[in-house]
């Protein structure tokens, strides 16, 4: 029987490897379909990280919205544009070296900044789901409604954008 702390460490390490390995595949694979599947791995890994900090509802939302909806959409888009993508048109990537330097510098900056801070120990009790729901419909009711409005506007707008162009109705 492993002690709980060791178990947490092992789980965190495995999750970090899964998420970061998947993310490296997402940005480096030249086959976009495989990159999208790796994105699925990353999203599930992040959901597991949510579980690790006892945010169960967020983990479910992540899997439902991201893996269920967004990833499906992206796979659809990749398949719909596959015929265009197959035409050879130069390298799949550009300015790789410079981008690597910039992103490594950014990572170093962020890591040094966050790791040198003194973080308090997490609170013993996780946030109960009831509090989250109550806050959503009391304190955050305005942002909540605005987000719903944005969602509707985005859906209607994208349908209007992506619908096949129709001829204008005959004018009398």
């Amino acid at each position: 029987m492993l002690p709980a702390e060791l178990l947490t460490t092992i789980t965190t390490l495995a999750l970090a490897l899964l998420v970061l390995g998947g993310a490296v595949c997402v940005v480096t694979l030249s086959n976009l379909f495989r990159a999208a599947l790796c994105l699925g791995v990353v999203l599930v890994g992040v959901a597991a990280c949510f579980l690790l900090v006892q945010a169960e509802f967020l983990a479910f939302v992540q899997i439902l919205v991201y893996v269920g909806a967004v990833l499906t959409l992206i796979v659809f888009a990749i398949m719909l544009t596959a015929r265009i993508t197959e035409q050879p048109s130069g390298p799949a990537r550009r300015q790789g070296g410079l981008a690597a330097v910039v992103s490594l510098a950014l990572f170093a900056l962020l890591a040094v900044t966050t790791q040198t801070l003194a973080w308090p120990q997490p609170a013993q009790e996780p946030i109960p789901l009831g509090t989250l729901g109550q806050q959503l419909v009391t304190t955050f009711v305005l942002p909540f409604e605005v987000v719903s409005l944005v969602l509707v506007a985005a859906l209607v707008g994208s349908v209007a954008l992506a619908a096949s162009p129709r001829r204008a109705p005959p004018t009398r």
Partner: protein
Amino acid sequence: MSLVRALLLVSCALFSLGVYGILTRRNAVGLLLAVELILNASALNFVVFGRVFGDVHGQVFALFVIALAACEAVVGLAIILTLSRTARTILADQVNLLKG
């Protein structure tokens, strides 16, 4: 290393990888994948901060980030589909319809 520091490190690395993807990808769908990585990193940060400080705001904002990421993906994919229809390309550096 505590759980909080480890998760923050993962989030930083995820963000930087997303930036790398945005800087290097030519395909517009690839850019969207990289943006999803960045948004996930920020949501993970919000949740971890909410846990550390015992505050519900972190989870609420992570929810908003996830919902707005879904909006962004929908609109982005609609634009890419329209682009593939009108400009016959989805390589971001070949789209110059607005160039004077």
